[in-house]
């Protein structure tokens, strides 16, 4: 079975993010970039499915500048078979990403697309659903467990919903987005790192896919969250009630 995993390069979630003074974005100097954690979970799940299903291939895909090679190379070191980098100099919003993934699916004809449910940088949470709708494919979002039938024809997806677990099943091809508790991604081991160098990484300019500036969302400005004010200690319940009335004006 052929599995396609789109993945996004994002700032390390452990990094302290600083907003540029002009609000045009975040400061990227000295910031470490990683595979978006939800995408990394998708890579891990694809590798686990591959270990269970003979004759499987895991293809990873990223969209952006040359620097995305780093994250693709890490996915190859984890065990993915080959990588595609769609070189885009334009900002990539969910509509652009979905259009690119759509084109690559047409080329590669995967049976399953595994994507992160959202990226931790702009948190749009749209790309997977957009792709499925463009292809008129069945989809299941926020998977917490995935099983594929022995013949590889059907997928069962567990979702953590309010009040319990929901189980969805559909015939492949289809698309699934991954939630946090689906798995714990493996480390890229040192032998894996050494093997990754020899794996194929195909670079495709955006224009070659017949796509241009397709973005529907324009980033206007980024501002840092306002700093939380320090709290205040009160001596008694009476004082608290009084302050809630006179100062906070909420009662």
């Amino acid at each position, binding site marked *: 079975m052929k599995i396609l995993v789109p993945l996004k390069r994002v700032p390390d979630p452990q990094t302290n993010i600083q907003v540029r003074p002009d609000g045009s974005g975040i400061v990227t100097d000295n910031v470490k970039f990683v595979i978006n954690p939800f995408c990394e979970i998708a890579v891990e799940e694809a590798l686990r499915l591959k270990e269970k299903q003979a004759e499987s291939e895991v293809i990873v895909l990223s969209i952006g500048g040359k620097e995305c*090679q780093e994250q693709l190379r890490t996915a190859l070191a984890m065990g993915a078979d080959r990588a595609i980098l769609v070189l885009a100099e334009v900002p990539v919003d969910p509509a652009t990403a979905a259009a690119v993934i759509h084109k690559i699916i047409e080329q590669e004809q995967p049976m399953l697309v595994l994507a992160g449910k959202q990226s931790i940088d702009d948190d749009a949470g749209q790309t997977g659903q957009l792709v499925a709708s463009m292809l008129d494919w069945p989809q299941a979002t926020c998977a917490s467990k995935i099983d594929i039938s022995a013949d590889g024809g059907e997928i069962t997806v567990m979702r953590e919903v309010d009040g319990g677990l929901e189980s969805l099943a559909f015939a492949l091809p289809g698309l699934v987005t991954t939630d946090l508790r689906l798995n714990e991604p493996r480390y890229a081991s040192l032998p894996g790192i*050494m093997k990754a160098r020899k794996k194929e990484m195909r670079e495709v300019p955006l224009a070659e896919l017949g796509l241009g500036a397709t973005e529907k969302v324009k980033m206007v400005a980024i501002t840092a969250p306002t700093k939380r004010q320090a709290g205040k200690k009160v001596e008694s319940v009476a004082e608290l009630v009084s302050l809630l009335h006179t100062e906070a004006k909420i009662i």
Partner: protein
Amino acid sequence: MANDRLLPLPGQLPASDPSDEHRMLRQLVATFAAEELEPHAAASDHAGRLDLARLQRTGELGLLGVTVPLAAGGAGLDATAAVIIHHEFAKSDPGFTLAYLAHAILFVNNLHNAANEDQRERYLKPAIRGELVGAMGMTEPGAGTDVLGMQTTARRSGDDWILNGRKTFITNAPAADCFLIYAKVEGKITAFVVERECAGFGVGQPIEKMGMRAAPMAELVFEDCVIPASNLVGREGSGIEHMMRNLEIERLCLAAMSLGIAERCLAEMVFWARDRHAFGRPIAELGQIQRYVAESFARTEATRALVYAIAAQVGPEHRQRIGTDAAKLFAAPIGKEVADAAMQVMGGYGYCSEYPVERLFRDAKLLEIGGGTLESHQKNMTRDLIRALGPRG
């Protein structure tokens, strides 16, 4: 696991990883250190215990044969890769890092360089997989820096070698399955592999010590210890050559550990200086604290620049004796002094085991002694310089 004390501070020199493989290796070992070493480091130190499960994990991740060529089952990487591992591991757990070094560098790297195919098959492959634990025996009760003064002897007897003597301060000895041992054959230093079960071989009780307690060490005793002729490594008398070559990468990795200790202690100190208040303001506003912080930052950065610059010069085909001596001579006191400065900035808290600086401070001292005392580096470097210059005129 988020621990901002393990992340680079603003303005630190970026990691100068020469290739994509080095960059990914750093990511692997930094993540492993934060997630799997950091949570156990204090307990291993307290118990004086080698964390065998963690050492086996490094085997699963392919880290035990980092310098061994791909064809021999290793990763085929270089001294810079070994430095990256020791640097990142030591930020969290220098004791474990020392045990890793005793296995992966002193036993595996050294044995690979000197062993024949049969020995590589028998010992190297399982050691790289982490299935057997290795150690190296050079120092003796009566011969440390004066290593050529070793008294342990080996003599041929039919199909066997008979070893007699004692080794001490042998890291990993309490847990090791096999040992690379240096002994004199008719006065010439020769290397052998000794298995733990060999007749006439004994391992003493773990030796209590101040720091690096997660890397237990013990004495080895050879009393008519019998080993098969096939366990002679290299040629009779070739031990000195292997030993000297291996000492270079060992010194470099130990210098990288001092760098890791300095970097961690610097981070602990800076966060403390920001957050701790005295006299109504953060202590970072006090000049005495600023001196500790700024000098520690400058020294740590200088150490980083030196250690990685020398690492780029070291390889199986490149000797860099004076450079590796210089790296360790420079780095070891800085590891100790930055740990000391961090403790001073943190005051009573720094002295308590609740914070990692107390442990790192104890660990840092070993690096001024083990793998060559500061004095041995001074001696060797001066001798090498004078020799290289030749006589005047």
